């Protein structure tokens, strides 16, 4: 984040064509920049590939961060023999999607302190409890957040998933689960040499609803009463129609 180089696309192309690699650059592209959630959506698999100016032993870490916002953690307690949600904690600024991928174990690439400073790792995120909430055992709640996000596949750590080739090319399959949240996703590619950040690049993926699915969702949100009336109308029509059809059979 601190050494933010925004690389112009035209500049990129010129690098590629002239074949004269500038020092410490990453060139990367995605097989798909726009993910459309339509009626047949079951998750997406995106290929991230590119070239870097590497040396033997260099490492690549890729962090994909989805839209950030409010995530609530609830805790159940036993009341009269039944488990009921009794307490909740709101976390603000929480990524609703996060995947951290690397070519080998992150602990082998960076020491704990660097991980913390660079905000790499599920416990090093800049997530805060909503001001005003007081709970005992804060760590337990934060752990529960991580555990549940991992379970829902919205957060993931994929060590050894980045494949490197001849210290020049890298390749990674990014998986977006079917329950992914719509919005802008940031793809940050970090290139490390002896635990030092040499270069980085940021791409983005836009996840949106499309087709009938998107239209239905929009109508349900914006014209909700009309949507309800239409839903009833459709049901009446099918009920009446089935009666007409089956009467003859």
């Amino acid at each position, binding site marked *: 984040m601190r050494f933010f180089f925004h690389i112009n696309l035209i500049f990129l192309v010129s690098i590629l064509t002239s074949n004269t690699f500038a020092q410490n650059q990453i060139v990367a592209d995605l097989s798909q920049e726009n993910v459309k959630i339509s009626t047949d959506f079951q998750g997406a698999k995106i290929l991230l590939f590119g070239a870097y100016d590497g040396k033997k032993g260099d490492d690549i870490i890729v962090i994909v961060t989805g839209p950030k916002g409010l*995530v609530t953690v609830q805790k159940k307690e036993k009341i009269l023999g039944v*488990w009921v949600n009794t307490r909740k904690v709101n976390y603000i600024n929480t990524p609703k999607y996060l995947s951290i991928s690397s070519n080998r174990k992150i602990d082998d690439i960076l020491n704990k302190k660097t991980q913390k400073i660079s905000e790499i790792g599920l416990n090093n995120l800049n997530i805060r409890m909503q001001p005003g909430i007081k709970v005992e055992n804060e760590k337990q709640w934060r752990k529960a957040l991580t555990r549940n996000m991992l379970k829902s596949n919205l957060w993931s750590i994929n060590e050894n998933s980045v494949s490197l080739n001849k210290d020049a090319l890298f390749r990674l399959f990014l998986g977006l689960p079917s329950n992914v949240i719509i919005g802008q996703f940031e793809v940050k590619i970090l290139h490390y040499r002896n635990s030092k950040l040499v270069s980085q690049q940021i791409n983005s993926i836009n996840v949106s609803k499309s087709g009938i699915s998107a239209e239905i969702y929009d109508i*349900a949100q914006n014209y909700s009463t009309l949507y*309800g*009336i239409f839903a009833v109308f459709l049901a009446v029509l099918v009920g009446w129609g089935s009666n007409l059809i089956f009467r003859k059979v």
Partner: protein
Amino acid sequence: MYYHDLRNNIENFMYIYLPIAEQPVHSLAILGIGAFLGLIMGLVGVGGGFLLTPLMMFLGIPPPVAVASVANQLVAPSVSGVLSHWKRSNVDFKMGTVLLLGGIVGSSIGVILFNFLGKIGQLDFVIKSSYVIFLTLIGTLMFSESLRLILRSRKGKVTRGKLHQHNWLHGLPFKIRFRKSKLYISILLPIFIGVIVGILAALMGIGGGFIIVPAMIYLLGMPTSLVVGTSLFQIIFVAANTTILQASQNQTVDIVLATILLLGSVIGVQLGSRFTNILRGEYLRLILSSIIILVSLKLLIDLVTVPSDLFSVIISR
């Protein structure tokens, strides 16, 4: 390779992404469940709504979406059912109208309650626990009733009851004559029943057939021949009102889910009503009540066993 692609395409086609539930489901599974419950509805006469919502929850559909979408789908088999009962002149429209007035008030209260419970984060719990209570109640009653009938018919004893019993409820004020049902009772009684059923319809995604049918027989004393048609008549309006209010207040009606379910259920209802003669009613009820008891047990177990994780997360959209 071509074969593989083709199979993949078919597989993909089977999955449909639900726009409101925001998850893919297997369309044939939903269609099958709809047809199965329609079959029960056609065979036994009572709706499958109270089984449909729990089954949707078992499939992982969020309870609020399951409840609202099932209310939507209920409109279709009810319309279909009323039309065929109407032809046989088995609908008391006057009684139905009084019941539905109560029902509309009740379902409106129910949707407001639904919204409130959602805000305080107790909605899932209330939906599940009301299902446990009602399914256990209905399941056990139905089970013992049908078992008694079966045992009695084995002995070959036939008893005849009165037209209907009179009790203190018939002494309430604002009496009205319902010619078709041959009743002269207080209007407050059907309105009250309507309100209760309306609240439950909104909260649980049911037509309330399993509550209103016994209530009409035992509390109002209506002739049994009119009960099913009249209750279906009022269910149309209660379910319609619930759907529109759920859509406008809570945005939880998934029209895709409801449509797949109702396509399945209208086919099932028609098949069911054709096969009523194959199995005896008592045996059908015995089977159905066993299913109901099993479903309520599953829900109860989910509520009382220690959750694998005490914590859960809600991701705001």
